[in-house]
């Protein structure tokens, strides 16, 4: 067992974990962040995507011990002050989810995408979301939602 200290959604945690434990299992089973889900065992689906120190990672693709001393944001920590994050709102507004299983990962990935490229073209959105699988929506509305969020987030920025 190894002791790790990780901040998850703004709260510090200190836990003993098995060295082989995946970050996603630490989040779900130890911290209780079950909003983050597992969709595959080959790091292909992106359902488990969270932010590590502000950047998206597939949390099934790293060990919990690798998160020691770092900061994790999950889908549960994205909304602030009871207000949906603009990306969450855009997913809702554009019907970018059906069953919702891919949604936490999609939203976390999309937020990261816009951090790197605030005004992506459709093609850039499609390329940037490529590592996240969705079986329900056919991606059409997900792409629309990300574009809409880019619009609203950049207008927020220009307002500021």
């Amino acid at each position, binding site marked *: 067992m190894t002791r790790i200290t990780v901040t998850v959604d703004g709260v510090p945690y200190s836990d003993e974990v098995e060295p082989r434990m995946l970050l996603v299992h630490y989040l779900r089973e130890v911290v209780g962040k079950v909003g983050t*889900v597992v*969709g595959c065992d080959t790091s292909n*689906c992106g359902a488990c995507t969270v932010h590590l120190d502000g950047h998206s990672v597939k949390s099934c693709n790293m060990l919990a011990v690798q998160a020691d001393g770092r900061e994790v944001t999950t*889908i549960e920590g994205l909304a602030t002050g009871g207000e949906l994050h603009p990306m969450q709102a855009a997913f809702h507004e554009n019907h970018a989810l*059906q069953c919702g299983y891919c949604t936490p990962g999609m939203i976390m990935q999309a937020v990261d995408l816009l951090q790197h490229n605030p005004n992506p073209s459709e093609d850039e959105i499609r390329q940037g979301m*490529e590592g996240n*699988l969705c*079986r*329900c929506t056919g*991606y059409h509305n997900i792409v629309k939602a990300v574009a809409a969020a880019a619009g609203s987030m950049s207008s927020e920025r220009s307002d500021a």
Partner: protein
Amino acid sequence: MTAVDDRPQAAPEIGNARRRKEDQRLVTGRTKWTDNIQLPGMLHLAMVRSPFAHAKIGAIETSEAKAVPGVMAVYTSADIADIQGVCITAWPVTADQKTPDHLPMPGDRVAHAGEIVAVVVARSAAVARDAAELVDVDYEELPAVLDLKAATTDEVLAHPGLETNKSAFWQLDSKGGGTGGDIEEAIAKAREGGIVIEREYRQQRLIPAFMEPRSTVVDPTGEQVVMWSATQIPHVLRFCIAATTGLPESKIRVIAPDVGGGFGGKLQSTPEEFITLAVARKLGKPIKYTETRSETMVSAHHGRDQWQKLTLAAEKDGTVTGLKVDLICDLGAYAAIVGGGVPVLGAWMFNSIYKFDAYQFNCTNYYTNKTWVDAYRGAGRPEATYAIERMMDELAAEVGVDPLEIREKNWIRHDEFPFTTVAGMTYDSGNYEAATEKAKELFGYDELRAEQKRRRDEKDPVQLGIGVSTFTEMCGLAPSRVLGSLNYGAGGWESASIRMLATGTVEVITGASAHGQGHETAWSQIVADRLGVPFESVEVLHGDTQIAPKGMDTYGSRSLVVGGEALVLAADKVIEKAKPFAAHMLEASVDDLEFSQGRFTVKGTDKGVGITDIALGAFAGHDYPEGVEPSIDADATYDPVNFSFPHGTHLCAMEVDTETGQSTMRKYVCVDDIGNIINPLIVEGQVHGGLVQGIAQALWEGAEYDEQGTLVSGSFVDYTLPTSADTISFVTDHTTSPATSNTLGTKGVGEAGTIASTPAVVNAVVDALRPFGVDDVLMPCTPERVWKAIQSGGGTQDAETTSAQQAHFDEGTPNQDPAAGTTDGVVQ
């Protein structure tokens, strides 16, 4: 009670693109997936699965696994023999269907790779999995039948005890059934002076690949055993458990909490569910089993898998006269819950929207030593639509006319509805002309045809192909009597209850069980309009046999057209029950009352009372009319009178690089007629998702096995689901021919996109390649296959480029067909 209603007229909810109620939870991660459930004292399972496709099970050595700290037990078949139940098939398609026993955990023989032979119970899933590795099973390998065509010869038997691989033969014949002429006569006549087109098409095996792996939690600690499961069918599952495990139905509660997609793939009662239940009963502890993705791929049922032999007879001018269909279908190792019935659902659909005089559908189902096959989005109807839409393109090519022209010549005209088809189905409404006109316009059909001609003339290495699919489907399963006549083991009704709560909100209970379709929103819209209550006041409850005791669940695009009608019936009963209360409160006669916008008013006066006020009055019970019960709640069960028949015109433009075989989608337009639309936003979403699943069959997906019977496309690395980068944005629109068989005028939409899009895409690819002499490409139309088709079709390329181009087809290329380079990869 207000005397005057001065509220503005509320806009109708039906037709409104309401944002979904269920989203708030889902976008914030406040979800209840089965795997999220934690109960005190809960233990976890890992399954020991056979690596062999067909083998006798010998000794199973469990002592090493049992010795691992944290392992509570290891069970084999004998340990749970009396309580494990049976995976049953609900639809033996004929009285003499051969059906092998399907135990959740067989004790003597496994019939496909991935079958469970032992289960490890431990304190954590990780410990259980580690210990499962230590269970040592002796297998005696048996010869396995892995190819559908080989199965028909009976040389190797999937189940030696059955003495044949054939499960059943099912026929629909228009002459025999009195719905049309003699198919052999029609073909003979066409052979003389008309056109006969004979083709064989392959419907490859697909994997539903819902995003949430299946998971089951069973808590046996209460009076009722509670099962949470990632299922589309909690009610059917409860029935199956009661019917086969010895637990009384009243002692079982099944809950489908949030379910992460299904597409037919969670329309099953699974070995994993039965085993989890058996272990929970044995140990008296809550038990959880969540599968890995690799387990999903190999053990959750697959879809499609047919060879289709088709003979189409027509007159010289392209007027169709007859269609003969001979299917062989792979059921995999067992008859699943719908099982052999899936291909049979195609029987009424191969003739589609066309006016054939004679028709015959022959379907023979076989067992092989592969994963079982059952419903996958469309179930039987995509297979049929693919075949007929491909054949209509072949006919157009033969006659030398535009594919739309040949369709128009043969389809049912809008003034011919209702129309009874050669398969005996009565289509209530539709307008193929209108949908096609609109689709052509949105697509820019004539311009794209002109561009195609230009590219052909210029011998552009990138050719343009235009694919057409004018599909229909039957959905809304199903009138119970029809199901009865087909030997199906259940009815097709749906139920609903409406509880008018004292404080003005309304609880709606539906027997349909949503897993992404947005029932909570759409049902709220229907009830809000019907009862005149705010959308926000309606709460929709489902997916729990204790809350919604009666239901037939969600599949076959049935929820709205069947479940929605049950809601209407229940709402109308509420209004009817509220009437005497209103009359009593308004001191009027029931005959003088009118109900509109949630209020009863007395005709010709300004006196009125709201239905929610009546609910409060009934709750208080202080003052209500004689002879009625103090409640206006109502239950209803609706049995549909007919199927519904959505249709649409789908147009697809594909650019095919004839030098590399790479095809790229340029444009996709669909105009669907699904009758009246409750929520256009949800409908669009269903169409988009369906389209991509159908397109994926055409271009990317296929479950492939090696000669040992191992599923080689057994993970998301090898089973190539489309990504956002593979797909495009679509143009979707609608025409509206309301269904006449239900009050809301709706038709189903859940499967339409999947059914229509596969042939549209393949037709486009083939259309691009026709100048090269190509008339078919096997699905999925990988670059490899397209390129080979061009070569063997007598393409115009010079031979020197060949070796250079082959370099494109290396192993690492995404979406590469695993069968590349084998004979499977060549064009028929």
